[in-house]
């Protein structure tokens, strides 16, 4: 029987579904018409294609608009709205809600393609039909991801307008059968609190814009193959490639900044598979940008250009596959859930790979490279080497990141390396060294042929200066600082100085020509900052109580600090825990840092930090660090553990902590917060009457001696008994110490017993466990990031103005 549900607004969902279908068919129509226009050169095809793309754009924008409207209106009859938003959520997070789920993030990606398509349609002239046909085909695939229709028993895409009551898990529930079920839904599930962060408002759209931009060089390259204009596509595509490098790079760095500011792993980069998945296409994209420059100046890198454009786009799709198919499940914390779309994603990935390969195969005769050998002393030769280094570096990252895929394909059981950071660094530090050296010398070579004497004259001063700087820094870094790090330090300083000297000598005041130098300086500074802040980071919260377990077990990083009592020395600081404040779902812990006055020795407060724990019923509580920024260093402070009082629970649970259960042999000790508990022996002669036992009970007592900090001794005898074949325990209490004892088990074989101790919560001192790390020179890294973006922006502007003129 059909139930007449009350209060549902199904109208918008129906419109939305219609728009998705319309968006899908119009993208397909547009793509095919553009291909027809490309073949026939008939302008009526082109008109049709443009119109269809326009309809596609309007449809997708409509879908996006409707989802926003439904989120604002809290229409929880829609699963997507319920899953990702709630009435209590501040409106400023509405964008984050929108792209929290897969469907929304696909729409965000499509949104950028539409903006790009609208520009490319009118700006690319003779290239329009080819480039736009690829764009439209990409949109066909992306729209199919949100179709949510079943064809031949196979579900295609997940639809953002699915109703809550249609979800198989919900459909089973009794309350869904009530016509007024909507009133019974209290609230939406809400946005994951981890994402309630301003970085999460700007990082995803930037990253997806970068993703979207990589399709442009790919579309141009394929069009070049289709039109047999193998080298002509380079010029119009070049500014877009560098724009992609800039935007994708910015997106990745924003993710790093987010991790540094609000994630708990203590750093900006962790070689997480999801991070790697966006870094790899950036590396191949940067390689592509440079190979296109070689092609433009020397005309002998056409195959490499086409191959790299295809590889980059492939890696974008591969990264989408990795993060969205659920295959990373065990190895990454922040990938999406499997929505059963992996098959579709594989098809998407292979389609464009095969398309590029087939086109190259068909045109293989035209692509034969008859150009002369590069000169050793030419810029293109060294750029080519740099490109190879980038590609090799990206392949290494891909191999290791792909272990879950390899496991799936070959049935192996490889896990990520036990020390992931070390594994990647071993490979990527040499890559970074080579890149820095090449960046340093690259610009001092000229295309075609360079005069060696002139080159040496230009480069040697920078090299000597870098060597001097490296040697001076050795005073601070010490003899035992690893040699590869010294080499990287030298290489990055050299890259900075060499580019600086090039900038002063060659570009002079012509600011718009300085783009590449500034970007290269930025890149080298970024690596230099990463090196210094990581290799010289100092964990000042040294836990000196522990035995040293060696390098693999860094068990000395967390320290207990008691409320208003401890003043612990950490590095040059003295640290106290001044108290906590709860604001909404955040508990802030005030950690105060003092410094001793040099003359008087008096401790003065220099700053305080308030790292917090976000209470999060759904995802589990999350701790967020707080960081004090100085010009030369940052002090990072993170709460790794704190007791959090729970409001619910029985009376007993409110007063007592959860029990500590110990398996004890005679003579063993349990340590509580205020005493030692020693098992002295077992007593089998229990007086039945005084212990209120039945006649037939078999009872054993555990003789416990409890000694508090003042050496006062207490004796207690919890009982373990068997009554009518059932085990019981009779507990005892020492009220003076706030302790309860329970004798729960005897192991007849080993003779060991199980004793559980419960302590009053008020016993527990108010404390936190914290970690504090000093990151020196982290600002070198951020300066590098900013310079890299500015430099690339200048280069992009110059290339756009050139390509338009």
């Amino acid at each position, binding site marked *: 029987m059909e139930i007449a549900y009350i209060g549902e607004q199904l109208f918008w969902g129906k419109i939305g579904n219609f728009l998705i279908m319309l968006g899908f068919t119009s993208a397909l129509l547009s793509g095919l018409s553009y291909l027809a226009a490309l073949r026939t050169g008939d302008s009526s095809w082109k008109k049709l294609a443009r119109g269809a793309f326009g309809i596609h754009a309007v449809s997708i924008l409509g879908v996006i608009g409707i989802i926003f409207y439904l989120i604002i209106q809290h229409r929880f009859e829609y699963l997507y709205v319920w899953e990702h938003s709630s009435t209590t959520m501040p409106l400023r997070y509405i964008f984050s809600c929108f792209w929290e789920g897969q469907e929304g993030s696909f729409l965000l990606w499509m949104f950028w393609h539409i903006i790009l398509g609208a520009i490319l349609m009118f700006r690319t002239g003779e290239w329009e039909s080819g480039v736009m046909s690829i764009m439209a085909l990409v949109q066909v695939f992306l729209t199919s991801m949100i179709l949510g229709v079943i064809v031949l028993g196979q579900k295609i895409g997940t639809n953002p307008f699915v109703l809550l009551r249609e979800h198989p898990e919900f459909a089973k529930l009794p309350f869904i059968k009530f016509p007024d079920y909507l009133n*019974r839904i209290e609230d939406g599930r809400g946005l994951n609190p981890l994402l309630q962060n301003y970085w999460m408002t700007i990082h995803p759209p930037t990253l997806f814009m970068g993703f979207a931009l990589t399709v442009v060089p790919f579309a141009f390259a394929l069009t070049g193959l289709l039109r047999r204009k193998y080298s002509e596509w380079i010029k119009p595509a070049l500014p877009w490639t560098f724009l992609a490098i800039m935007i994708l790079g910015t997106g990745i760095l924003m993710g790093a900044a987010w991790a540094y500011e609000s994630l708990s792993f203590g750093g900006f980069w962790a070689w997480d598979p999801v991070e790697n998945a966006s870094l790899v296409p950036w590396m191949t994209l940067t390689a592509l940008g440079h190979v296109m420059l070689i092609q433009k100046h020397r005309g002998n890198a056409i195959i490499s250009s086409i191959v790299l454009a295809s590889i980059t786009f492939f890696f974008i799709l591969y990264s989408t596959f990795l993060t969205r198919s659920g295959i990373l499940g*065990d190895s990454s914390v922040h990938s999406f859930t499997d929505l059963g779309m992996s098959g579709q994603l594989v098809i998407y990935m292979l389609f464009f790979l095969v398309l590029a390969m087939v086109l190259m195969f068909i045109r293989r005769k035209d692509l034969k490279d008859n150009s002369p050998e590069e000169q050793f002393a030419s810029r293109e030769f060294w750029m080519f080497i740099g490109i190879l280094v980038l590609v090799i570096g990206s392949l290494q990252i891909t191999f*290791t990141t792909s272990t879950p895929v390899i496991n799936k394909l070959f049935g192996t059981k490889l*896990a990520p390396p036990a020390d992931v950071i070390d*594994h990647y660094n071993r490979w990527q530090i040499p890559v970074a060294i080579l890149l820095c050296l090449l960046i340093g010398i690259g610009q001092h070579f000229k295309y075609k042929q360079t005069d060696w004497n002139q080159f040496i004259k230009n480069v040697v001063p920078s090299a000597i200066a870098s060597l001097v700087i490296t040697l001076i820094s050795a005073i601070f870094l010490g003899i035992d600082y690893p040699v590869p790090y010294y080499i990287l330090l030298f290489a990055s300083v050299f890259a900075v100085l060499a580019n600086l000297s090039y900038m002063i000598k060659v570009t002079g005041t012509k600011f718009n020509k300085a783009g590449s130098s500034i970007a290269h300086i930025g890149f080298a500074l970024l690596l230099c900052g990463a090196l210094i802040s990581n290799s010289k980071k100092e964990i000042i919260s040294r836990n000196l109580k522990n035995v040293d377990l060696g390098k693999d077990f860094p068990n000395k990083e967390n320290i207990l600090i008691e409320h208003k009592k401890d003043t612990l020395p950490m590095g040059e600081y003295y640290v106290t825990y001044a108290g906590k404040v709860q604001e909404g779902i955040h508990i802030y812990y005030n950690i105060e840092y003092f410094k001793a006055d040099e003359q008087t020795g008096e401790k003065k407060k220099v700053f305080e930090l308030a790292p917090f724990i976000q209470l999060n019923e759904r995802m589990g*509580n999350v701790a967020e660090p707080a960081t004090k920024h100085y010009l030369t260093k940052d002090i990072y402070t993170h709460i790794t553990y704190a007791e959090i009082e729970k409001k619910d629970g029985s009376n007993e649970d409110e007063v007592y902590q959860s029990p500590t259960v*110990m398996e004890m042999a005679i003579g063993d000790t349990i340590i509580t917060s205020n005493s030692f508990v020693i098992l002295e022996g077992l007593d089998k002669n229990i007086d039945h009457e005084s212990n209120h036992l039945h006649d037939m009970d078999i009872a054993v007592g555990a003789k416990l001696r409890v000694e508090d900090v003042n050496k006062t001794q207490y004796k207690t005898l919890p009982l373990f008994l068997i009554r009518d074949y059932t085990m019981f325990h009779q507990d005892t209490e020492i009220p003076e110490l706030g302790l309860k004892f329970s004798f729960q088990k005897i192991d007849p074989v080993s003779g060991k017993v199980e004793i559980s101790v419960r302590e009053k919560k008020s016993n527990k001192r108010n404390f936190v*466990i914290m*970690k504090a790390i000093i990151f020196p020179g982290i600002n070198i890294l951020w300066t590098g990031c900013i310079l890299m973006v500015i430099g690339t922006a200048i280069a992009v502007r110059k290339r756009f103005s050139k390509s338009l003129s």
Partner: protein
Amino acid sequence: MKNKHIIAIVVIAISIAAILSTVADSSTYASFATALKSPNKTFHVVGLLVRERPQEYNPEVDADLFTFYMKDMEGIEKKVLLHMARPQDFEKSEQIVVIGKMEGDEFVAHDILMKCPSKYNDPKSEIESMSRN
């Protein structure tokens, strides 16, 4: 073309090295039984937290030691010594992956990955709370 051939060989050689190093460095998803056989090797052991058994964290004594019991996918139960502060909301995790080595009869771990059921968009827990209304 000669340069290009040399370059191609270099690229292939380094790629093979990269693959080999990935395989050599990678640890293995294994059970406690396998980990017991090679005590010096690092393993990733996937399992479930044994809630009935005691968990111990005494930061006063050692803020970097947390012990608990885990049952691996073959049903073998072992004590795990995790050399870290007790992870926030540890008890909420459903599946856990511990990374470390067997030492005697205990698994000494230096890292842990936890999966909370709800993190993976499983609406079941929410449904249960809803149907109580």
